[in-house]
């Protein structure tokens, strides 16, 4: 396990001691990661010393801001190995990015009777926009099921692609619940063989694995800034240049036009065409700092470290009686472990963990169809990042053992009233 504990010092929030005296163990990274000082400082510095609206402002601050905004785009292009900068579109988040593809490419391309293929493990962000498109166009959605080992197999993907001949295959590169990782390059190749366009939801992949959109050969890739140590309020839509060029704009407004008359408008070139209005300027600058920070740690080191922790935690959890881990036992996996306790509801688990300073998520994690398929309404999810420690993983396992014990039926038979004095 690479020694990444030094980097904890870069994250002010990780030093936090909670009000009950407990040290914070932040294991809710799949919902959102924390930010190193360099990201927070990049944002402050922007606002304190050179901020202005970008694009065609002919004064020093606007030129500096524009330069930094566009430099960020270059860094992100490098981060995911896009061919050109203007394949990088800044959006409000991964969700907005999927909606952009659905609202622009989808409305232009998808017709009644067409099929969009998803997996049952998709996040709502990669389901609902297609359901909206389906309501509008009459296209059909198909979901590839899990096998008995919590996996979407390449065989199932191949079968579904052949069976449904979808116009679009949209799938997550890494599940936000199951801890599974998709073989993106293989699936993309299979989809392209069937003539399907491919959207990769990389919201859970971008923080954890080196991405190469060209090697993936993906048509669209989306992810969020706040999950890669960056600011909220920004996400990335990568699109293959020729595809983005062929698409109509999505949101309309300033910045995305070439010319406007009372009769109509013509759209600007990429990437402005898809960036209507004042863009997330400070957020882009913060995102550049985040990408730089992550690269300085090293994505391979990150992946290895968090997998080691997650597998360590998973092994411990599997030893507790009545704990069901909803993840394959073997094979390539990410830093996410979700589980169910026989004696306690996920919300009671998360609540109890919080009392011990351990932050996890409980619920359906925006994957209701997946939970329905698993026949669990809510799971508890611990998600590790490079700044987590083995000690934190141990705290989690120990706490879960205690909680499972605490909520065990004890055969109570009488209801005790609260002392009257307690009543408000």
């Amino acid at each position: 396990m690479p020694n990444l504990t030094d980097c904890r010092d870069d994250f002010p929030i990780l030093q936090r001691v909670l009000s009950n005296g407990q040290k914070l163990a932040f294991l809710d990274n799949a919902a959102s990661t924390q930010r190193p000082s360099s990201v927070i400082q990049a944002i402050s510095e922007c606002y304190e010393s050179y901020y202005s609206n970008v694009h065609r402002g002919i004064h020093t601050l606007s030129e500096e801001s524009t330069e930094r905004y566009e430099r960020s785009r270059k860094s992100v292009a490098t981060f995911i190995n896009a061919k050109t900068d203007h394949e990088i579109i800044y959006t409000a988040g991964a969700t907005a990015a999927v909606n952009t593809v659905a609202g622009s490419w989808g409305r232009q391309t998808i017709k009644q009777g067409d099929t969009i293929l998803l997996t049952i493990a998709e996040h709502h962000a990669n389901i609902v926009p297609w359901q909206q498109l389906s309501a509008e166009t009459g296209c059909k959605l198909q979901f590839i099921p899990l096998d008995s080992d919590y996996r979407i197999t390449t065989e199932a993907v191949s079968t579904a692609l052949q069976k449904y001949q979808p116009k679009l295959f949209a799938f997550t590169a890494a599940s936000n619940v199951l801890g599974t990782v998709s073989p993106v390059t293989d699936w993309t190749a299979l989809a392209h063989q069937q003539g399907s366009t491919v959207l990769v939801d990389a919201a859970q992949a971008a923080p954890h694995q080196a991405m190469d959109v060209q090697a993936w050969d993906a048509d669209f890739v989306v992810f969020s800034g706040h999950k890669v140590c960056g600011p909220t309020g920004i996400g990335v839509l990568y699109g293959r240049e020729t595809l983005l060029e062929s698409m109509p704009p999505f949101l309309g407004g300033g910045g995305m036009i070439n010319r406007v008359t009372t009769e109509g408008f013509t759209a600007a070139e990429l990437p402005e065409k898809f960036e209507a209005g004042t863009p997330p300027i400070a957020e882009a600058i913060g995102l550049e700092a985040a990408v730089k920070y992550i690269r300085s740690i090293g994505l391979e080191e990150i992946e290895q470290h968090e997998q080691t922790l997650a597998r360590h935690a998973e092994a411990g959890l599997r030893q507790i009686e009545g704990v069901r881990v909803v993840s394959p036992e073997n094979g390539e996996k990410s830093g996410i472990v979700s589980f169910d306790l026989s004696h306690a509801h996920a919300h009671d688990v998360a609540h109890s963990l919080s009392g011990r300073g351990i932050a996890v998520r409980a619920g359906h994690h925006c994957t209701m169809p997946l939970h329905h398929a698993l026949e669990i309404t809510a799971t508890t999810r611990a998600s590790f990042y490079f700044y987590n420690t083995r000690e934190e993983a141990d705290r989690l396992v120990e706490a879960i053992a205690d909680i499972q014990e605490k909520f065990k039926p004890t055969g109570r038979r009488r209801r005790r009233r609260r002392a009257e004095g307690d009543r408000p």
Partner: protein
Amino acid sequence: MRAESSQTQCAQQECDKQMTSEQDIYEEHVLDHYEDPYHRGPFDQATHAHEADNPLCGDKIQISLKLSDDGKVKEAWFDGEGCVISQSSASMLMETIEGKSLEELNEFTAEDMLALFGPKLTPNRQKCCLLSWRVLQAAVHSPLDADDDEMETPSFGGPSLGEET
């Protein structure tokens, strides 16, 4: 034993005004109701009933009431599934409302419900506690012969309901 230790923690916590997440909601009193609930199960003499769930948590509550002609709750039963808070609070509510008049039920506010439950809850967990209270509001207006329309859409939401990410 565990609850004991969590109560010690609780004393510590109460000194701290900043605290927003409390562990001690799982008081013995609460766990008692959870494990040995009052009037949980089917009830075949109901005159009024309603059911709802909070799809975001998966909490489900069904309430069946037997109302007398003079508008009093003669018997109150619930059924459902979900977290400790949603289920134990429903049990406490059933126990409390028996014998009460409809007027008294009307005056029983959300704040009263939270007070009845006891331990202070953060906004997110208040939703769990208020589920049975909301189902009760609907149940008294849902005579069993009447149009069941409302029961067809048991979806339960409110302005403060969000979804976890």
